[in-house]
């Protein structure tokens, strides 16, 4: 039991250099400034999004501790948030994270077949990453696009009215792009 606790990922300090660039840090400070004095913790969700995007694609303990130090809060306050919200990844993910909707409205429009097809095509199960580190497959709950079912999201992009043929094109395209695409872009400035 106790060894399990020690093995938990929240105890694994990787010693990865986790630090925003000077430019990003300025932006982070401007986000913190939106909230009243003493309420800098409010910036936690937005800053975790940025951290995940710019510091390796997932939230390792090192990254979370760094975010805690920037916001002057305890690391545990970051962990409890990072483990609550599904968009924060605590494990390494592929370059393209495929999130397929599994909820009712998509399911009755063929969404379950789409999930099966993706899983077979990529030869991975829900939650897994391909050995080459290109794709992670996850099923998620309603993406708020039910009229365009079946729906999936890959990184920030939505793909709608999915068919097996469309999946083939999308996946094949991304496989080609995986070699040339830069690592995750940091376009968050536009987003907030």
């Amino acid at each position: 039991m106790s060894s399990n606790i020690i093995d938990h990922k929240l105890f694994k300090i990787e010693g990865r250099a986790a630090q925003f660039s000077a430019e990003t840090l300025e932006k982070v400070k401007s986000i913190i400034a939106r909230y009243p004095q003493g309420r800098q913790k409010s910036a936690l969700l937005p800053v975790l999004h940025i951290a995940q995007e710019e510091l390796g694609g997932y939230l390792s303990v090192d990254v979370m501790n760094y975010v805690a130090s920037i916001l002057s809060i305890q690391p545990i306050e970051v962990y409890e948030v990072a483990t609550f919200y599904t968009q924060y990844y605590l494990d390494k993910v592929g370059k393209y994270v495929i999130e397929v909707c599994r909820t009712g409205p998509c399911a009755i429009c063929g969404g379950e077949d789409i999930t099966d097809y993706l899983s077979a095509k990529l030869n991975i199960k829900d939650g897994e990453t391909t050995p080459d580190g290109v794709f992670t497959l996850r099923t998620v709950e309603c993406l708020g696009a039910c009229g365009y079912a079946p729906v999936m999201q890959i990184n920030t992009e939505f793909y709608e009215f999915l068919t097996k043929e469309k999946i083939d094109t999308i996946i094949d395209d991304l496989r080609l792009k995986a070699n040339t695409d830069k690592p995750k872009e940091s376009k968050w400035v536009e987003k907030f």
Partner: protein
Amino acid sequence: MGRKVLTDKIHIPGIETIEVYKNNGGYETLKKALKQMTPSEITEEVKKSGLRGRGGAGFPTGMKWSFLENTSVGPRYLVCNADESEPGTFKDRFLIEKIPHLLIEGLIISSFALGAESTFVYVRGEFKTQIGILSKAIREAYASGFLGKNILGTGFSLDIYVHSGAGAYICGEETALLESLEGKRGNPRLKPPFPAVKGLYDRPTVVNNVETLAAVVPIIALGGEEYAKIGVGKSTGTKLISACGNINNPGVYEIELGLSVDTFLNSNEYCGGLKNGKNLKAIVPGGSSVPILPGNLILKTANGDDRLMSYESLSDGGFVSGSMLGSGGFIVYDEDACIVRNTWNFSRFYHHESCGQCSPCREGTGWMEKVLHRIEYGHGTSKDVDLLVSIAKRIEGNTICPLGDAAAWPVASAIRHFRHEFEFHIENPEIVKNIKHHSPEKYKVAVS
């Protein structure tokens, strides 16, 4: 019938930009509100309009605003709920994407009425594209002097910030949303105190849905009384309905409240009837949380009256033979849809999304999911249906927030109206086990 006040301009090319929006009368209502009206006059118009919250609960907006009128000095907040995660609902996404300045104009007028100088829009994290569109529109509004210090020379100052969520349905519940905005887990707060007394940062706060706040613009433009003439009875105004499921034209439609369900479902102007000429089996009219109704009860009430798309008509018959308008997420099931599978799917959703604070919800949603799973896969027992009814009953009304009820109602109503399907599964395990579970064929066999 059929007036549109929110989406009437969305077909104009470039309406998402401030120039085109302004050239088509945009921000004129803001000028009227800020220069010719006092905050309490605005609230008065909203009261007269009869507007009810469009986020799901249908609480009268003017009344909610007036709770803030006599609160102490110091900051108060308006928070716009754009978390939109209720399965079947995708209208706020549409509005933000098509006409972001309508929301911004509504936010400024509403903030002025409430005396808020910092307003937050909490958008679900998955809507990155819409967050981008809204942020750009906000920057345009600052550049045009509609936001920032001393707006239009009136002395009123306002900042609007977009705050991204990170994937949690529960953060749509208003107090969970406030917790999340404060940088915490989305655990709903026990009420009272209500947000109007102790909300964001313990200050008086109003939380309103995107569509509600956008509707403030036509209300001020037309006047509350004129707006109240749209719609039917106490269901005044228009409502965005997001239609999905087995229909020909899924999408977002602005309807005048009081349109008949039959027309909405079958007319080509709206859903265009069922896909592939199939027959109607059931409809969930207001997002996954509201009771499911079989075809005969959704088109006509138990008394034989035409069912209308209005708060009153959809809930006619209470939970025995009625449902709710809810968030306007209209989910249509054709004859092949499996009610058991759908109910299990929704139960899994609520179990996944329960914040875990109260045991009836945390344990009950998981228990229902488990029982439904075994029925769906041919391992149910004869006591399981009653067991589900009893679990649902014990969750309902016994939790901190309404997610518990929202999880119980779909199960209770599916059993109330489709008990035979659950029993068929239990009595015919061999048939149920031997069909591919998400094939349409399944249900042709099972229901007859």
